[in-house]
């Protein structure tokens, strides 16, 4: 279905992985995103932080069109996101997403979770899809759990399955929406380690997170969002050492205490 000749193809030569221009979004009367402009280069790793309710997750979810917006435009991998379902599906095939609450499919085994999209979206033969899934499960270090159902796994393991599931679609861009916020403290590290390993691969990453240690370690740029706006963008060193805005400074005092 998505392989029709007139379906838009992602343009790997496009210089920008994500381009957001003049984005505005309202929930009813509430102006949740205000004039967002952002260009993410291919292979760039970006961490978005800021107080809750600041629009971080909403912005991330606009990039694969889980959220609608009212004004502005978003271009992902050379495909402009319009109302055209073909464009939306094309972008989603190309962008992997990891959710705060994992959102694994509880009625499918770990392996089936990973092979569902390759089989039904990429039309891959079942055997190839399973091989691919096993290789990614091995990469997130849980190949032995492949035949289990998600409910039998710990939170950290579930989140790693979710990462493997997204990677099975061979995305160019990965979105992480607070991937460690729902985890018990001792499981945060195993997920962050997986993400660090992924970052060294050169995949484009946008991560909404409060894990400042992770941001310092892997981010090329850190974005601070508050009140629906991008308040500050900077590289990690300057961001932590020398925040430009009062609000950033206050936030960092809170989280780094």
């Amino acid at each position, binding site marked *: *279905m*998505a392989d029709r000749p007139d379906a838009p193809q992602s343009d790997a030569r496009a210089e920008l992985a994500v381009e957001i221009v003049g984005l505005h979004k309202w929930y009813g009367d509430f102006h949740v995103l205000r004039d967002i402009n952002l260009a993410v280069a291919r292979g760039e790793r970006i961490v978005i932080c800021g107080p809750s309710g600041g629009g971080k997750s909403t912005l991330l979810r606009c990039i*694969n069109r*889980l959220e609608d917006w009212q004004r502005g435009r978003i271009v992902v991998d050379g495909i402009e996101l319009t109302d055209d*379902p073909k464009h939306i*599906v094309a972008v*989603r*095939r190309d*962008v*992997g*997403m990891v*959710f705060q*609450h994992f*959102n*694994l*499919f*509880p*009625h499918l085994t770990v392996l089936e979770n990973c092979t*569902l*999209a390759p089989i*039904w*979206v990429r039309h891959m033969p079942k055997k190839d899809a399973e091989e691919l899934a096993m290789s990614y499960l091995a990469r997130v270090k849980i190949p032995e759990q492949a*035949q*289990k*159902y998600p*409910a*039998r796994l710990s939170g950290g393991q579930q989140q790693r399955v979710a990462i493997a*599931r*997204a990677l099975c*679609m061979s995305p160019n861009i990965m979105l992480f929406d607070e991937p460690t916020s729902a985890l018990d403290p001792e499981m945060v590290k195993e997920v962050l380690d997986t993400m660090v390993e992924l970052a060294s691969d050169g995949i484009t990453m946008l991560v909404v997170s409060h894990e400042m240690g992770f941001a310092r370690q892997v981010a090329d740029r850190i974005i601070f969002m508050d009140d629906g706006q991008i308040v500050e963008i900077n590289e990690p060193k300057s961001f932590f050492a020398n925040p430009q805005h009062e609000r950033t400074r206050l936030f960092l005092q809170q989280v780094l205490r």
Partner: protein
Amino acid sequence: MAAMTEKSYLRTAPAEHLPPPLEQAGLLRWARENLFSSPGNIVLTLVCIFFIGWTVPPLLRFFVFDAVWSGSDREACLASPQLPEPGACWAFVRVWYSYFIYGFYPIVERWRVDIFFAALAVGIGWLAWLSAPRRDIGAVYFFIVLPILSYVLLSGAPLLGLAVVPTAQWGGILVTIVVATVGIVVSLPLGILLALGRRSDIPVVKFFAVTFIEFVRGVPLITVLFMASVMLPLFVPERLSPDKLLRALVGVALFASAYMAEVVRGGLTAVPRGQYEAAQALGLPHWRMMAFVIMPQALRVTLPNIVNIFISLFKDTTLVFIVGIFDFLRTIEAARADPHWATPVTSVTGYAFAALFYFICCYGMSRYARGVETRLARAHLR
């Protein structure tokens, strides 16, 4: 004070892993825990024992010990010196049972009905046995081969040398099974489509689904059947108007679909938003997302309700008698009026037989659904 607290509450060595306290196995313990655990329970237990003692022996006496099992007419079931208080007249059921099964279906053609029953049993067994081989072929057989085969067998096909049997001659368990099976098999997919329609973003689809569901739900089944059989001929010329049984079938199936739609919709709302989002984020197009991610979860939580509708549909088939179709219950009604068998216990026996048949079918469905539920629950925790 503080020192004392530390001494008494902090442990100095790790606690050992101990086996759970030994079960004092035995009937006595079970009875004490389950039947006599509190004054209220003791009273309830005694009341139940009394009730069982009060009802079960007379029922057993009537239906088993004093029942008449053979005989050729009413004389056998009347009070006699040997049997001053005769019980159920099973002889009546034995004489009439082929009428209960086939109605007025011509006797020489009844082997066709038997083949239909066998073919249906194979289909149900194939699909109901969850680890049966090649269930995909089973589904093709059940949903495509079986309906065609049944139609040819039951209605007849002069080309194949099968005499035509008009549906007016069908009756008994045959009609009950046909109506119930068609109702069940049609209502589930149609109900799913209606539920999806009701949640659709397309206004026309949504409007149609809502109108249909609310209209059908707002009308008693009897009315639907009446409209199908009495009003339809007023608008359609007699020559073109469909068969009476077919009209009743459509009425029952549509009626059940409307209820099924609401049950399935309930299941759909129980699937968390995150499941939709995860499926969308993977790029699954709408229908595949529904088929592989949302529907399996929705149907799973709603399985008890679906079976509930199947059971009530099975019993509602008795209402088709109102448009002159001889279902199982109607054949018993007709038979119990037979003057050859006019005894004080004939009616009771006939109705008891009907109750037994409906109970076995409905309880069977219920047990099977329970089995599937536990199996699904276990599988998800493997």
